[in-house]
Structure formats: C-alpha cells, structure tokens
C-alpha cells in the first residue's frame, strides 16, 4: 500500500467531491443572504422613511441604491476600539458567536424544492438551538464590555430572548403535529397536500404567537428594549465599533431573515402555492418556487418594518407579561386545540 492509497482510500474521491459540492452550496447561500442582509437595511430605511413621509436614503447612487455598500465600506475601514477595561478574549469572541449562530441556521432552510444545505430530520430543533446559542453572544458581549449600558442591555436582552424562546418553541408544536415531521422540507410538502395550502389558516393561533415571539427574539421594535436608543444607547453592543459592530448588526438582520424563512416554511407554504389558487390562476405554476419563497420572506420582513413604524416600545414589565402570561398560555391552548381536532377528525 502506497502512502497515496493510505491517505486516499478508494471512495475518498466521492467524499471529497461531496464536500466540494457542499462548500459551493454554502458559499452560494451565505453570499446571497449577505447581499439580502445589506439590502434589508436599505429596504428598512426606505420603508420607514416612506411611512414617516420622508424619502429615506437618496444621496448615494440613484435613489440611494448604493447606500448599503457605502455603509459596509465605512464600517470596514473604521477603527476597532476595544475599551481598556473590557474582558478582551470574551469581547473578541462574542460577535463571532452571534454571527455563527445566526448564519448556521441557514443550513436547514429549504429555499426551494430540493435545495437545502443540510436535509436533517430535526431542522426546526436545530434552528431553535441556534437561536438559543445566539443569546450567548448577547450576554457575553454585555458582560465583557464592562460598561453599564452594555451590561444592562445584555441582561435585558438575554432574559427577553429566553422568555420568548419558550413561546416560539411551543407555537411550532402545532405545526409539527400537523406535518408529522421536524424537517422543514417535509413540513412544506405536507402543507402543499393540506386542503388549506398553508398552515397559517388552521394554525392561526400558533402563527400569531410565532410572529410576536419572532419579533421579540430578534430584538426588534416594539420589543427592542435591549437596544432602546433613547435609554440604553445601543444596549449590549454599545462598546463595539467598526467590523465587530457590523458582525452584530449582520447577525440581527440574518436573524430576521431566518425568522422570515421559518414563517414562510412553517406557516405560509414555503416554495409552494395553494392548490385552489393554482386552480383559478393556472399560469402561476410557471413561477419558480424560489420566487414564492423570497416573496413570502420579504412579506414577513416588510411586516416587521411596518410594526416598527407603527407601534411604540413596550415597557419591560409589559414585555415580560406578554411573553409569560399571554403567549405561553396561548401556545399551550393551541397545542391542545390541534390535538383535540386531530383526534376528533380521526
């Protein structure tokens, strides 16, 4: 046996090829999503600008279209300030944890039929696990900054994220019961078979809980207490600047896109269109699945912006009361209803 055979046993070429294909898929997903993240910021500023009767960004490029690129370049060249009293190691790692947790959730999202980086059985569980891991980034950055604002922001944020995590986890149980799977592709396929076409109709209660919990999970208005500009400046990442700040910012927007993808896949039918709509408008079946998926995701993201422009921020006691006293009982009731109806139908 030569060294070459020892290092590359028969069949290892297949593995190698497999890994290359996976890497290409991952590169495509990360590239496309990061581009969407950049333009989600532009979209947000435009939408909120219009809602407040302003123009939004207009200066850089036609209609301000190059604004995200200018922002990115600016953050890239900015000085990376590390406060003297900060716990350096933790301060370095925290944004990486946030970004890693947010990005890797993308591995299990089915963007269209057959395109998913990792087709694992526990896709939903993986996403929930990753969003829990993301809260480590928050609390560690708040702790490591050694600043009062960051500390308070980190504490508030982690308590908020774990509170709404429960409501979110419970709201998805109804979907799992109806689809009989935790694999997101299977859930989408089960929805296509279902008469209503989307689970948002039978699971309306679960959908409501999910949407509210998703807004709170991503620390968006009206639940943006951790970063409440007018009282905590920027919350847990107040001491971060330049590229590290950009990583947190990117993680937040990736989180929003993930929640949009989850809502689209679990409640809005993913890449499919309900059959009854196809029966009325048969030409819609020529529209590729990815277009439907992206449209649904952007609908959810637009909804986020709409809420941000409409509602004032909640107080912290209200926030906790909504999470624990309203959403969790609602989610449990939803599970019981779903169970009773499923048993009765059988």
């Amino acid at each position: 046996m030569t060294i070459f055979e020892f290092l590359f046993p028969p069949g290892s070429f297949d593995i190698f090829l497999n890994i290359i294909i996976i890497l290409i898929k991952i590169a495509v997903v990360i590239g496309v999503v990061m581009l969407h993240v950049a333009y989600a910021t532009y979209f947000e500023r435009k939408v909120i600008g219009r809602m407040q009767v302003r123009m939004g960004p207009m200066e850089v490029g036609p209609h301000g279209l190059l604004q995200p690129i200018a922002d990115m370049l600016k953050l890239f060249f900015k000085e990376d300030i590390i406060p003297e009293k900060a716990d350096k190691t933790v301060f370095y790692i925290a944004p990486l944890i946030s970004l890693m947790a947010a990005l890797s959730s993308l591995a299990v999202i089915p963007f269209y039929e057959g395109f998913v980086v990792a087709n694992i059985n526990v896709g939903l569980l993986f996403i929930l696990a990753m969003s829990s891991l993301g809260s480590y980034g928050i609390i560690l950055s708040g702790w490591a900054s050694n600043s009062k604002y960051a500390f308070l922001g980190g504490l508030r944020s982690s308590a908020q994220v774990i509170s709404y995590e429960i409501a979110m986890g419970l709201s998805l149980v109804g979907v799992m019961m109806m689809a009989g799977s935790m694999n997101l592709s299977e859930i989408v396929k089960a929805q296509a078979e279902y008469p209503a076409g989307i689970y948002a109709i039978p699971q309306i209660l679960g959908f409501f809980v999910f949407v509210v919990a998703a807004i709170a999970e991503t620390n968006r208005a009206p639940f943006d207490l951790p970063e409440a500009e007018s009282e905590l400046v920027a919350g847990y990442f107040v001491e971060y600047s330049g590229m590290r700040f950009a990583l947190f910012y990117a993680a937040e927007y990736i989180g929003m896109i993930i929640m949009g993808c989850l809502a689209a896949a679990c409640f809005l039918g993913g890449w499919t269109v309900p059959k009854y709509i196809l029966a009325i408008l048969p030409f819609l079946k020529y529209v590729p699945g990815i277009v439907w998926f992206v449209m649904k995701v952007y609908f959810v993201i637009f909804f986020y912006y709409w809420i941000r422009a409409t509602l004032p921020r909640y107080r912290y006691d209200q926030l906790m009361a909504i999470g624990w006293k309203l959403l969790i009982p609602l989610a449990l009731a939803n599970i019981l209803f779903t169970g009773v109806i499923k048993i009765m139908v059988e």
Partner: protein
Amino acid sequence: MPGTYLPSNYLPVFIFLVVAIAFGLGALLIGAIFRIRRPYKEKLMPYESGIDPVGEPRVRFSIRFYIIAMLFVVFDVEAIFLYPWAVVFDKIGLYAFVEMVIFIFILLVGYLYAWKKEAFTWE
C-alpha cells in the same frame, strides 16, 4: 464500506458552522490590515453619555432575572418533551394525547403557582 461512510445529513451542518466562523474571522482579519488604530485614554473609556464613568460597571441587578432563567429551564424542557410527541402524534393516537394532557396539566399547576407568586410580575 466503512471507509466511505459519510454522515451525509449532518456533515453539511458541521461544514456550515466552520464556514460561518471562518466568514466572521475573515472579515475581521482582512479589515485589520486596512483600518487605522489611534487609541488614546478617553477613547478607550467605557461609554457613559460622555462623562467619566462612575462606580463599578457591573452593578447589582434584580433577582428576577434568576427566576426567569430557572423558569426557562423548566418550560424549555417541557417544549423539548413535546417535540417527539408532536412528530409521532398521528401514529400514537388518543392514549398518548391523554398522557400529554396530564403532563401539561402538571406543568400548568407549577405555572399557575409561579404566576400566583408573582414570578412574572415586574415593577
């Protein structure tokens, strides 16, 4: 063949984790070449609305955060128990449903106790 075994479903997840970390690190390291670095004492102070920081930054905080953390563990474990049950719900039928109702009921008693003790009330 044992040599060609590939946990093909989970391998992409692992590779994705590695690529995600590499992506973040890469952005930071490449940026480090270009960006300026001119620290001075005031710049490196913790931010406190422009005045010199007063006292310790790690202030004492409300005990309620601990209660929330403990309640989170209880309810998250409950949710995790519900997942496998929900996935096979179609196959196991009424018996398992009744069992799960009893399970949720027991937790509900604890939940109502926590509510009564004002664990969810902040002032």
